[in-house]
């Protein structure tokens, strides 16, 4: 990561009864960076955000902003701005009063408040709507008022809790673009919670992928996609088919593995491995070829037309020999392959060739095809 760490989370833990919502989480975020907390539901991303905002108190750990530990400060004293999932606009106050609320807490005199409310509204392109009741706003307008309200008191950190999840799909992409532009313009350190990978990749410079309260991997979107560190990351980020394979040899950071039909492939892999393995294959990690010996063969069982390309689901012929004691292995596995739109038809027998990238090998036996 570049830049000096502005926000530092150290060994943060939070339990709710027997459930460890966040466990030993450490992250650093440079000043002005936008970090996305990504993960499935129950992964602890929202709890992390609430710990940052001060709505929950951590059992352990520190939250340092510019060197100051705020983990035990009340929310009001943290100077963090937050946009809530359902916006939480005060229904009994109008747009202007909502935005002025945080300014009044800071003791900004009334005369200046009017000006700053107007500026905030201008910033989100809602100039002149001060006296509008919040109930009369559209979903997109509410989202922008919530953003203006959070930014008006000039917070040190901006927290966004699934900020786009309540918008129409048609509105979501445009709002996302506007949000990204605004945050970049202001240059505020931002943490975004989302369960949508596309949103995280589109908005964030860095993504922290969480699962069961733990950090799986922190990195740029490219790093998460291209160099997943765990099977969970490989399966959660992007599409991948999980194929059980047998490790034949591993030397000079190249592993030789056996695929269905006794076919051998070579896969880049730095860390040592042993025993049964799972190979995660990206759709672009293999290509369609003519069936033959030395090639993984299978039948096309599904075809999804995507426009410029098509996604083929290929059921392989033949199982992996002697993968070990794992009895539950399917005799045949299915692999997703990206190909030209007219490369094959359902029912065709095809061969699969590795492309040298988009293949990620992990020890142990993982699940079936992910996503």
């Amino acid at each position, binding site marked *: 990561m570049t830049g000096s760490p502005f926000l530092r989370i150290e060994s943060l833990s939070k339990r709710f009864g027997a459930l460890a919502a966040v466990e030993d989480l450490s992250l650093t975020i440079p000043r002005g960076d936008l970090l996305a907390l990504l993960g499935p539901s129950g992964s602890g991303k929202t709890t992390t955000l609430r710990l940052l905002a001060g709505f929950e108190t951590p059992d352990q750990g520190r939250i340092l902003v510019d060197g100051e530990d705020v983990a035990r400060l009340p*929310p009001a004293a943290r100077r963090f701005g937050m946009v809530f999932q359902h916006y939480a606009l*005060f229904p009994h106050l109008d747009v202007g009063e909502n935005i002025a609320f945080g300014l009044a807490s800071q003791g900004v005199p009334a005369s200046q408040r009017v000006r700053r409310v107007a500026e905030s509204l201008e910033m989100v392109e809602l100039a002149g709507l001060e006296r509008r009741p919040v109930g009369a706003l559209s979903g997109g307008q509410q989202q922008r008022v919530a953003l203006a309200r959070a930014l008006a008191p000039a917070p040190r950190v901006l927290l966004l809790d699934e900020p786009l999840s309540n918008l129409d799909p048609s509105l979501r992409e445009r709002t996302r673009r506007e949000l990204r532009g605004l945050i970049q313009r202001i240059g505020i350190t931002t943490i975004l919670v989302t369960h949508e990978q596309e949103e995280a990749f589109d908005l964030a410079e860095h993504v922290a992928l969480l699962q069961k309260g733990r950090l799986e991997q922190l990195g740029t979107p490219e790093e998460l996609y291209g160099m997943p560190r765990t099977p969970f990351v490989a399966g959660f980020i992007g599409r991948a088919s999980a194929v059980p394979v047998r490790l034949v040899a591993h030397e000079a950071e190249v592993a030789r593995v056996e695929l269905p039909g006794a076919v051998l492939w070579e896969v880049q892999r730095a860390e040592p491995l042993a025993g049964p393995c799972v190979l995660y294959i990206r759709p672009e990690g293999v290509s369609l070829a003519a069936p033959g010996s030395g090639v993984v063969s299978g039948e096309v069982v599904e075809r999804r037309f995507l426009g410029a390309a098509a996604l083929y689901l290929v059921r392989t012929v033949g199982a992996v020999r002697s993968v070990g004691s794992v009895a539950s292995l399917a005799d045949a596995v299915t692999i997703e392959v990206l190909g030209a739109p007219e490369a094959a038809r359902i029912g065709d027998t095809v061969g699969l060739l590795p492309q040298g990238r988009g293949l990620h090998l992990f020890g142990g036996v993982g699940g079936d095809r992910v996503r």
Partner: protein
Amino acid sequence: MIGQRRREILGILLALVLAWLVVYPLGIVLTQAVGGPGGWTLEAVRRFAQEKNEWRALAASLGLSIASVIGSALVGVPLGVLTARVAFPGRRIVATLLGLPVVLPPLVGVLAFMFLYGETGFISHLVQQIGGLRESPWRLEGPLAVLLVHVATMYVYFYLFTRAALAGLDPSLSEAAASLGADRWRTFRRVTLPLLRPALAGAGLLVFMTSLASFSAPYIFGGGFRVMTTQITSTKLNGDDRLAMVETAALLLLALLGLLLLRRTEGRRDAVGARKGIAPVPVRARSALGSLGAATLGWGLALLLTLPLLTLLLVSLVPRGTWTVEALPPSYTLGNYRALIADPVRLKPILTSLWMAGAATLAALALAIAVGSLSRRKARSGRLLEGLLALPWAVPGTVFAIALATTFSVRAPWVGRFVLVGTIWILPLAYLVRNLPVAGRAILAGFRQLDPALEEAGASLGAGKGRVLRRITLPLLKPALAAAASLAFVTAFGDFVTSIMLYTYDTRPISMEILSSLRQADVGQAAAFGVVLMLLSSAVFFLAGEGRGATG
């Protein structure tokens, strides 16, 4: 955390205060039932068990309550369906009229019934004159009379609950039934009615408990027919305190048993939960005749059920001693109302009732808000506190009156007992205890509807606890506060059952003044007090409704 510990300490203190108000007096009644100067004794219990009249009164209470539930359901549910689902001219007016008895203090309802259907009431006068009878054709007395009054005042719970449940019902459910080929009747029987079950069970529970605790109707119309509430009062007035305690304990157990059993039949509540789309449009009758029938039925029943109130108004204009055997009073005057304002002796009960009900309401609101905010912030005592708030609901007013009278007639400050009986404080205290469930339910519901994210948003925008409470929580709770305040005030303002046990000459409330006017045969004055009680109660109720409308 310091905040968490402070919350827990506050919670414990609050629990102690509530327990002192709610549980402690009941505990004293239970122990006194089996205790005496010479130690524990079952003497009074034995006397209770051997006395036939006691068992008869217990059975009468239970039977009357069950009959009241059935009767009220038979009147209330069809009226609810009629006004919610069938279109006829004047439907909205009828719907409002039918809801009126909910703000009617029980004593006023009883009074109105007496003036209309009693031996000297309009209807009996009318029948007597038409038939040329020498005596009144009937006596409004005994179990049937009490049941009649109960049904005529308690149907409103079934009526309101049915309407609310119908309004909350997802219309797509009956649309689905229709698209599956069910006709209107089958849809109602197989889809609507089963979905109304939780609401009907709730209304049934409410009627059962209200009827079990009912005092005014059996007291005035019971005659020789005794239920537990009147039995307790008469035993207490006869000075047999220990037996009164046993009777009180018996009624309390019956109430708790009823609550337990009915809770079980209440069933799932989630069925009505999902709701989407637009509210169903009232169905138009298929023929002009059907529409006419619906209108006649609706208006007829609305008039029948609101006629007693009109009667009350009319009687309040009768000068003292002028109306004896005529069908209609021969002369009218505003003198009864003038006397209320001009005569300080008459004005005083009104002012007394106002301040006592007001003070009790404010105190109940404060306690309910404290419980609500502690329980919302996950204080460990939250559930206990909510339970303590709700408990008085299951306890008939007579039981509480006896319990408070017993507890606060002894000076023993080290065990939390003070002499309050005979002072101006005992009635406000009694009203407060009786108001806790009403205020508690409305305010806790208000807290539950409040999105916690709104308060969190306030905190994240730099507002301290005080400012969040002042600027966000309380303004958003306004509808709940208005509902709680109006319900609590109206209940306390019209209270009769605890007042009759605990009042002193200096603190006699309106209800006692009505009773004493009746005893002096000054029906006009009694009716005028009744009208004032009714008008002030409705005014409070509708003003609070306006407040609710403005923010809701």
